[in-house]
Structure formats: structure tokens, C-alpha cells
């Protein structure tokens, strides 16, 4: 694994952390006061900072650090969450995401934006009544109570914090030892006890001490008492601890900074003031401690059988009913203050287990275990299962054809095979299925940005974000969704003033909902804004020549005009949504996914965009039809209805065109066989079946086919893989008889027919 791969993993993890960060902040914003949420948010920023530091991404580290500092204040209850604070934090999360992206892809981000946020964050961190362990800028403010701040390492689970209560006493009496050195130099006592993890990760205590020496003058004592006899020594264990007296003109943060990347893997504690006593005492520290150190939370071991915990004896940390316990008891006193990781193996294993257990508990609401798998592997599996499905169908068909004596055993076996294949297919599809959550989360940011730009107050409410859909669908969903969200905020919602004047809440609500409905995913974007201004849409459509000035359209028809390719109001639109991309593009991208989109709007109440998408792009529900002796599949989503044309409904229109009358409207009839070159002459419509399809422009066309064979779920196979794009054909599939059938590209066929109509129209006008 080379550096780039590791870096790539880091960025992948960053993405997860960023998502965690944002959702955490949003939860806090919604009034979640669970400290674990704050911790999760803090951890996310901290991990990004840690990783970024390892890769030398200084800009990212710098920003993450400031962010983290402010979060730490929130975490330690020095800073109350407020909506202003959360606003800044959400923005910071966005900037952090940008910085991460910039670090990954190169490029840079707007420095002024970063620096403004840095100032705001710092202001929050400092501007609280309580003294705060402020960023390095303000060493003077460094005061004693900071020592009481919970250790950042605390939430990593197993984290013994054996601090002496004497320290607190000292501070209450006088602020004496802190400013011991005079001339603004302070003295700190650092206790540092690496766990074996620290060494396992390639860190080195000596290097950390060397770094610490740059902060100030050190007086270091290495405690070697816990070193077991050589026959009990774990070669990979960590036995030494250090007691360090630091005299420095810097603050506590500077010290913590040195241990920053090691803090999860060691026991580390900074106390202001010199613990002269500790230094004076040569070996018998344990007895000096007024308070029994509790190296780890005993409750963790609750479910261990019969655990005689010698709580009364400060020295004995844990005693197990195991023989190994005899050894540590031999020198309990020395063991005490910084002991736990040095326990002999048996206990160490337990400690590790406890640690593990705790880590699982700490993981935010019991996240299920996951593994990363290359997408290619999953796709390969899906392909194979597709083959299996086809093969099973072929087998079933040939058994039916051959009438294999009607053996019930064969039929039973086949049935079971079918059942199993179905189940395998479903499970494999489920692997690719992902919740829409990440996409929805991205929308949160887009809403914030546009709300900022337009000066509107918007609250995004998301529902059903755990609804799952195939990854390809998710990947292609972001773009149309972004566009629609932009549109909804920019055009749908009114300004706060206007909303208040209308008696609405100043804050507009944008509701993003996902749910499963009859084997498809339905995504709704609802705003409580003004709704579609039908008069304006209508006049615009007339202006652009989309509809005749005297045409009589229903409200719904007018609303849907905004999806028309010719309906571009781009020149009038603002910078935000009018980037030359109209709703027609949104509609097209949705249709490319095999989906549909519609809008319902109530004046003054708002609009709802509804998208319905297939759950997967690997299979498709199709209508199997016969055209000129060929079998074709027409995607079911395109078909509005099927009808049996009667002679009186068919009207010739020019030399080649025919229209079919459907309930008083005339709809162009397209002979699929002819347009695909399967037959030279137009077929007689009365002999076939017409499929009424809805095409891109919103117009309907009747596709004429010879016969309908039935509806079937088919596995989509690319034609491009071994051949090339075929006009009028979207893809191929393999039917139960083992033959390839082509899947019709309805939009392309309709477009092709339009070109045809255009030329015949020209002939008409030339002759007439």
C-alpha cells in the first residue's frame, strides 16, 4: 500500500467524518442535548485534524484546530450552544468540507471565508464568561480551573485519570505554583504513560519528550517500577511512564499540542503547578496519594464473573481470580499511580477487552459493522447473479418445452431454484443499495448557501433519509436534486418580509422526503412558498411560442410547462438557479434514470416536486412486445397506457404521418418496426397494439407494435460494452429463451420520429 492509497483512505474517512459532523450539528441544532452528540462532533473534527496532520495538510489542520477548540468549549460546557453558534459551526463544517476537497483535488478555497470563520469561532471560544483554555493567542488567560477540564482523551473509553486532588486544593488556596517561575513562566506537571498502542503506531515516547523540550525547560523522571521480571515481560508491552515538570512561558495548550496525536494511545495528564511532592518521592508515590487512583472504570467489568475488586486497597488495581494476579500484588505500591497498562498479560488481556467493549459501547448508536468493498467486485457479483437469473429462466423454459415426463421432483427443484435465485438477486441488489442520507445531507449545505445569498430564512426538513436505493441512482440524484432545491429556495420561497406580510412564518420550510412506493423510490421536494405563478408561466410560454395564445390549458398542464425544453427563463433568473440550466434538464436527467417527475402547486401555499425513480439500474420492469418478428422490451415507466387502435381512430396526416385519436386529442402514431428499419413499409395500425408513451417534451406519442407478450423484469445489459451505441436502442437484455432482446429507447424513438415529421411538414408546405 503506498502513500497515495493511504491518503485516499484518509479522504474517504474524512467524508464519513464530515457527514457525521454535519448530522451531529444538525441534531444539536434541533435541540439534541446528548453529550455524546457533541462528543461525536468533536471526534469527527479531531480525526480529520489528526489525519490531516499526518499528511502535512497544514491549512486543513489549522482550521480544524480552531474549530476543535471551540467545540471543546461546548463539550466541556463552557460554551452554551446557541443558534448563532450553530450557524457558524455549520458554516465551518462546510468550509472544512471544502478544505478537505481542496486538499484532495488540489485547488484552493476562498481564504477570506476561512479567516472570517476562524475569527468567529475564536470569538465564541473566548467570549464566554468562564475562563477558557483559549487558543495559543492568549496565554495570559491561562488559569487554574482549566485543569479541571475533562481530558480530551476521556471519551476514548478506557482512560485512567489518576489526578491528585491536592492540586485543586492548592489552587483554591492561592494561585501560587502556577506562576512559580516568575516572569510569566508557568510550571506544569505532566504525567505521561504510553500504552503499547502508541508504540504499535510508530510513535516514540522519546520523540514526544524531545518535542516537549521545545516548549519549555523540562525536568523528567522515568518511572521504571512497573517493569516486570524478564520472564513476564511482554516484548511489545509498554511499561515505562514519565513524570515531567515543565517550566514554560507558553500555556497548557502548547503542552497538549505536543501529545496531540498520541493522546488516544497513552495516559496523559497535565496539571498546572509543580507536583514537587511527586518528584520528591522516589518510589512510593502510591502511598502519598490522598485519593485512591482508579485506573479504570470498574463498571466496565461488571459482567465478568465473580470479580473481587479490592477497592479498599488503593494499590491493587484489579485482582482477577486468575493465578497471574499474584505477581502484581508483589509490588503494589509502586504500581499504583500510573499502573494499568503494565499489568501482566492476563490482566492486560482483560483490560484490552474492556477497552474494546467500551469502544463498541461508545460508538454512536451501535453502528453496525461494515467493510469496504471495491465497487467492481460488487458489480461483478451482480453480473453473475444476473446470469444466474437468466440461466434459471432458460432452464425452466426448456423443462416446460421438453415436458420431461412431468417429473414432480424436477419441478419442485426448479421451483426451489427459482426461489433461491430470487433471494440471491435481492440480497445482492441490497449490497448496492445505499441510504439517500449522504445526498440529503449535501442538500442541507446547498440550502444554507442559497439562503445566505438570497437573504431568505430557510429550514430544511428531511424525512426518510435512510431510504435505500441503488448506488448508481444515488450518484446521479445529486445533480437534479441540487438544482431543484436551488430553484425551490430561489423561486419558491418568499423573502422573510414578504412572508411576514402574508402572515406566514418568516422562516420558510423546505421538506425533502424519500420513501419507497410500489418498488420505486419517491422523492418529494416541498416548499411552503408562493407556488407557481401560473399567469407568468403562461405568458412566458406564449412569448416563447410553446403554446398558442388562445390555448386552453389546465392548471396542471401550465405547471408542467416549466419542464418544457423551450421554457427557459434564464435571462431573468438570478445567479443562483439560472445558470442556463432549466427544469427540462432536471427532467431529462431524471428520465435517463428511468424516472418521472411532476409538480403540483397551490398558489400561496407552495409547490411539491415529486420524483419517482427505479430502485436499481441493473434491472428494469419492461413490457415485452413483438415488432416485425423481433422481440423488444419497452420500459414500463415510459408507458402511460396501451390501447387497441380501431380503424376510425386512425387519421392519415400528410404522406407518411398518421395520427391516432385518443379521447378527442390527436396523437402521432409511430411504427416502431419501421423507424427501427425492421420493415420497409408502414404496418397497418389495426393489426397491432398502440403503446401510449410520454416523451421528453411532455408530449405523448403512440408507439405501434405488433403484439404484447407480457410484462417482465429484465436484467439490463450494455450494448456499448462490445459494440456501440445503437440509435433507438437503450440497452439489451437476455430473455428466458436465451436470446438477446433489445430495450427500446423511447425518447430517442420519439425524437427520431419528430425529425421525420419535420421533413414531411416541409414537403407539405412546399407543395401546398
Amino acid at each position, binding site marked *: 500500500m503506498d502513500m497515495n492509497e493511504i491518503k485516499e483512505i484518509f479522504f474517504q474517512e474524512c467524508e464519513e467524518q464530515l457527514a457525521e459532523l454535519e448530522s451531529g450539528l444538525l441534531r444539536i441544532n434541533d435541540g439534541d442535548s446528548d453529550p455524546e452528540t457533541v462528543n461525536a462532533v468533536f471526534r469527527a473534527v479531531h480525526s480529520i485534524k489528526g489525519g490531516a496532520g499526518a499528511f502535512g495538510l497544514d491549512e486543513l489542520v489549522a482550521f480544524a484546530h480552531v474549530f476543535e477548540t471551540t467545540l471543546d468549549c461546548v463539550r466541556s460546557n463552557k460554551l452554551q450552544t446557541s443558534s448563532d453558534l450553530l450557524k457558524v459551526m455549520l458554516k465551518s463544517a462546510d468550509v472544512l468540507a471544502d478544505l478537505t476537497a481542496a486538499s484532495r483535488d488540489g485547488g484552493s478555497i476562498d481564504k477570506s471565508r476561512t479567516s472570517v470563520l476562524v475569527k468567529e469561532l475564536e470569538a465564541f471560544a473566548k467570549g464566554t464568561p468562564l475562563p477558557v483554555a483559549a487558543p495559543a493567542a492568549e496565554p495570559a488567560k491561562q488559569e487554574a480551573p482549566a485543569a479541571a477540564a475533562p481530558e480530551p482523551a476521556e471519551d476514548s473509553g478506557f482512560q485512567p485519570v489518576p489526578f491528585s486532588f491536592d492540586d485543586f486544593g492548592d489552587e483554591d488556596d492561592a494561585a501560587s505554583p502556577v506562576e512559580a517561575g516568575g516572569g510569566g513562566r508557568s510550571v506544569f506537571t505532566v504525567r505521561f504513560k504510553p500504552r503499547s498502542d502508541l508504540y504499535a503506531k510508530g510513535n516514540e515516547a522519546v520523540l514526544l519528550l524531545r518535542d516537549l523540550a521545545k516548549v519549555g525547560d523540562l525536568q523528567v523522571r522515568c518511572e521504571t517500577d512497573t517493569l516486570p521480571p524478564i520472564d513476564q515481560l511482554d516484548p511489545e508491552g509498554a511499561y515505562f511512564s514519565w513524570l515531567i515538570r515543565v517550566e514554560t512561558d507558553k500555556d497548557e495548550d502548547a503542552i497538549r499540542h505536543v501529545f496531540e496525536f498520541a493522546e488516544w494511545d497513552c495516559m496523559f495528564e497535565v496539571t498546572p503547578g509543580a507536583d514537587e511532592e511527586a518528584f520528591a518521592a522516589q518510589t512510593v508515590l502510591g502511598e502519598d496519594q490522598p485519593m485512591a487512583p482508579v485506573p479504570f472504570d470498574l463498571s466496565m467489568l461488571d459482567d465478568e464473573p465473580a470479580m473481587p475488586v479490592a477497592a479498599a486497597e488503593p494499590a491493587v488495581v484489579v485482582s482477577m481470580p486468575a493465578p497471574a494476579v499474584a505477581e502484581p500484588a508483589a509490588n503494589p505500591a509502586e504500581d499504583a499511580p500510573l499502573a494499568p497498562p503494565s499489568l501482566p498479560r492476563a490482566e492486560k488481556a482483560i483490560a484490552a477487552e474492556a477497552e474494546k467493549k467500551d469502544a463498541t459501547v461508545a460508538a454512536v448508536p451501535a453502528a453496525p459493522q461494515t467493510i469496504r468493498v471495491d465497487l467492481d467486485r460488487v458489480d461483478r457479483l451482480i453480473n453473475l447473479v444476473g446470469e444466474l437469473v437468466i440461466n434459471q429462466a432458460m432452464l425452466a423454459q426448456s423443462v416446460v418445452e421438453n415436458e420431461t415426463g412431468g417429473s414432480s421432483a424436477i419441478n419442485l427443484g426448479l421451483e426451489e431454484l427459482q426461489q433461491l435465485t430470487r433471494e440471491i438477486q435481492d440480497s445482492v441488489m441490497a449490497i448496492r443499495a445505499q441510504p439517500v442520507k449522504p445526498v440529503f445531507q449535501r442538500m442541507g449545505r446547498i440550502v444554507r448557501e442559497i439562503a445566505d445569498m438570497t437573504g431568505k430564512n430557510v429550514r430544511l426538513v428531511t424525512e426518510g433519509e435512510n431510504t435505500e436505493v441503488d448506488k448508481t441512482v444515488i450518484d446521479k440524484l445529486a445533480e437534479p436534486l441540487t438544482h431543484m432545491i436551488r430553484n425551490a429556495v430561489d423561486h419558491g420561497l418568499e423573502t422573510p418580509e414578504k412572508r411576514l406580510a402574508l402572515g406566514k412564518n418568516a422562516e420558510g420550510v423546505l421538506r425533502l422526503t424519500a420513501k419507497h412506493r410500489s418498488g420505486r423510490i419517491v422523492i418529494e421536494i416541498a416548499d411552503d412558498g408562493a407556488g407557481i405563478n401560473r399567469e407568468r408561466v403562461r405568458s412566458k410560454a406564449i412569448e416563447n411560442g410553446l403554446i398558442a395564445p388562445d390555448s386552453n390549458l389546465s392548471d396542471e398542464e401550465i405547471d408542467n410547462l416549466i419542464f418544457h425544453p423551450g421554457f427557459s427563463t434564464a435571462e431573468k433568473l438570478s445567479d443562483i438557479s439560472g445558470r442556463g440550466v432549466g427544469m427540462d434538464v432536471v427532467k431529462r436527467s431524471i428520465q435517463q434514470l428511468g424516472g418521472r417527475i411532476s409538480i403540483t402547486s397551490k398558489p400561496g401555499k407552495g409547490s411539491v416536486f415529486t420524483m419517482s425513480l427505479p430502485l436499481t439500474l441493473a434491472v428494469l420492469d419492461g413490457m415485452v412486445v413483438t415488432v416485425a418478428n423481433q422481440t423488444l422490451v419497452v420500459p414500463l415507466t415510459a408507458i402511460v397506457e396501451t390501447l387497441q387502435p380501431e380503424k376510425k381512430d386512425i387519421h392519415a396526416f400528410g404522406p407518411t404521418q398518421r395520427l391516432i385519436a385518443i379521447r378527442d386529442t390527436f396523437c402521432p402514431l409511430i411504427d416502431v418496426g419501421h423507424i427501427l428499419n425492421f420493415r420497409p413499409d408502414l404496418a397497418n395500425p389495426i393489426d397491432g397494439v398502440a403503446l401510449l408513451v410520454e416523451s421528453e417534451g411532455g408530449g405523448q406519442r403512440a408507439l405501434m407494435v405488433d403484439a404484447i407478450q407480457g410484462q417482465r423484469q429484465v436484467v439490463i445489459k450494455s450494448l456499448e460494452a462490445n459494440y456501440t451505441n*445503437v440509435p433507438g436502442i437503450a440497452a*439489451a437484455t437476455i430473455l428466458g429463451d436465451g436470446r438477446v432482446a433489445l430495450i427500446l429507447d423511447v425518447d430517442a424513438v420519439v425524437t427520431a420520429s419528430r425529425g421525420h415529421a419535420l421533413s414531411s411538414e416541409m414537403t407539405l408546405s412546399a407543395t401546398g
Partner: protein
Amino acid sequence: MRVSDNDMCELIAFTIGDQEFCVEVMAVREIRGWTPATPLPHSPGYVRGVINLRGVVLPVMDMSLRLGMEPTDPSERHVIIVIQIGKQFVGLLVDSVSDILTVPATDIQPPPDVSKEMDRDFVQGIIPIEGRMVCLIQLNALFGSIESEAA
């Protein structure tokens, strides 16, 4: 295909009508019997359509028509040679597979400067074998033209 002088070439020979052709053996994935193909609309006449090769949608080319001869009327005795070039697979419809040849690269003679009918581009060279003549097909040329003609 670049060959140095002392390389041996392994080739698979097949017949179309009474003529013999060959392709490099490394390009051949498998040889299978003819199964009816699903015709593709708007494609050149020599593309017979697509067949299902264990789940892969495989285009099948009528080699006879491709080389400017009569279209093949395929029967069960005809075979499809599945070849791979790059990442793409294509099936060549031929009358039969006749031989596996191992010839020194030096035996391959450049095609004579006459054939206008049988597109010269498709013939990389001719090989004399025991009084027969076998044409070595240039596979890349066969492939590259599908897309431009179909588009």
C-alpha cells in the same frame, strides 16, 4: 501484430466459401456453433446482430460479407469464432474452422497490391501452406470500422 524474424506465429484457420483465412490464436476466446442472432437496427449489413454468450451481449459479424463476398446463410454447421480485442468481444461468423497453424513469422508475405474488392486493410498478409494459401486477417481494422460505420 509485430513479429520478429524468428518468432513462430500460432494461427487459427477458417474457411469462407472455398477460401481460407486465419487469425492469431491469442485473440480467439472460444469457438461455438451458430445460434440465431437478434438483428440490430441501423447497423451495417455485415453485422448479423447480437447473441447471448453466457450473459455477454456479443455482436456477430458476417465475415463473408465483411470481406466483400456473398452474405452467409447460416446453418447449424456454421461457427462463430469469438475474438477479443482490447476489452471488446466480437463474434466472427465463418463457414468452418479448418486448422491450427504454427508458422514462422517470416513465412507471412505482404498482401499483393491487387485486391480492391476484398478490402486490403483487412488482410495483414498471406501465408503459403502446403500448396494452400491462407490470408491473415488484421483484427484491429475489422473492429475499428464497426463504430464509424454504425454511427
